[in-house]
């Protein structure tokens, strides 16, 4: 779990390029999701929820370069778009959404680029004895996401002019006030925009930690740097 904290540090130190690249990809997706508000009030939040694993790929791309001290501009993401955005599209939008250790295993799928069968084996190896902590990390972040969403929605009540606060009496019978119905997806999108890079970074750091443990990956990097010449 401490490895996850290192990921948070990584995200902090690379925040500028992570958030720039992520926002450029995420904002159009969010705009599209909001466009579905007219169809059903709950649809934008569900669409955003489904889009998370796909959005994560951009973040991981930037973070994996940041781990080696490289800066990433949106142009770099655009150049690598086939690897970042379009590979494994089907899995990304379906079963991986339901994974409980999404951010720990994403680096295996995205960065190691193994064939499907080998990747499955590799994921099991990476996850071995770490599934619990990865799951705990995921749930801590998802609860935080919910908490932040509720916190942002509560601002509607804090900042509403007196006497104009949304009426909650209809909630039990399924009548959600319009302001609330609109503010929930917006709050969710904002929480997502802020938290997702930290979540992906935490999983990425756990993945690196696991590789350091399995195969002393970090020492290999040091030796290659020190004794290459």
């Amino acid at each position: 779990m401490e490895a996850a904290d290192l990921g948070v540090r990584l995200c902090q130190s690379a925040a500028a390029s992570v958030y720039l690249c992520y926002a450029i990809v995420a904002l159009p997706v969010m705009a599209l999701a909001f466009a579905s508000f007219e169809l059903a009030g709950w649809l934008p939040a569900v669409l955003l929820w489904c889009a998370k694993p796909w959005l994560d790929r951009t973040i991981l791309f930037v973070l994996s370069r940041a781990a080696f001290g490289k800066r990433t501009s949106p142009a770099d993401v655009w150049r690598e778009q086939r690897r970042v955005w379009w590979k494994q599209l089907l899995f990304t939008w379906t079963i991986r959404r339901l994974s409980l250790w999404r951010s720990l295993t994403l680096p295996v799928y995205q960065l190691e680029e193994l064939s499907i069968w080998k990747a499955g084996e590799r994921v099991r190896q990476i996850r071995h004895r770490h599934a619990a902590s990865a799951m705990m990390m995921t749930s801590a972040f998802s609860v935080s996401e919910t908490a932040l969403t509720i916190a942002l929605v509560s601002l509607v009540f804090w900042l509403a002019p007196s006497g104009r606060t949304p009426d909650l009496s209809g909630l039990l019978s399924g009548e959600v006030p319009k302001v609330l119905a609109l503010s929930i997806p917006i709050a969710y999108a904002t929480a997502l925009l802020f938290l997702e890079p930290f979540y992906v970074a935490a999983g990425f750091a756990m993945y690196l930690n696991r590789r350091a443990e399995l195969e002393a990956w970090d020492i290999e990097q040091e030796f290659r740097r020190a004794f290459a010449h």
Partner: protein
Amino acid sequence: MILGPSDVLDTVVAAETPEGILLELRPAGLTARFYAFGLDWTIRLMIIYAAAMVTTVIGGIGVAFWLVLVFGLEWLYPIAFELSPSGATPGKRVFGLRVVMDNGLPVTAAASVARNLLRVADFLPFGYGFAIVSMLLRRDCKRLGDIAAATIVLHQPRATSRMPLHTVVPVSPARPLAPEDQAAIIALAARAPGLTAGRLDELAALAAAASGDVGRSGPAVTRRVLGVAEWLLGRR
């Protein structure tokens, strides 16, 4: 841009003692603190629930006692445990955390009261929103209460396994090694027991230049590279 040694990515923050000694503190982040809080909260809830069953039987004055208990648990539970020798609530202890002052000293009573009263500020705007944002944005993972009280929540240091190095013969390095390179070789020796023999030989072959075996590999080279680690640790 290559990262220099000064900005190596690490979670450790340094605290300087008046004697000029740098202490390394390992602040605990969101996940561990989230679960510690969750566990403490569950414990409090269970006590409150059990007390409610007893006091409703008594009725009247019982309810009054129960309300006092709820108040006391909410505000005094963390303070009492943080001021105990372990410096941690039961939830924090389970997850290996402890509360100390910024400079690594045990938490003082005033600081403990301040950080726990300010949980209210962290709770705002709702559901500990400010606490989450503050913990993710700050290097030292402090929530608002920690900032105000100058406290920090740390991971307790764990004992690491000892290096089984007495079996190899010290070898003097074949070339001068920079401090980072020395650290890497010692790290290899420290983690050697956890690696497979094949992988260990592979890694040692990369560092073979250190023991003057460039281009060669195998268990013999591995022993010589580990011998360099032994030499670097001063067992000559």
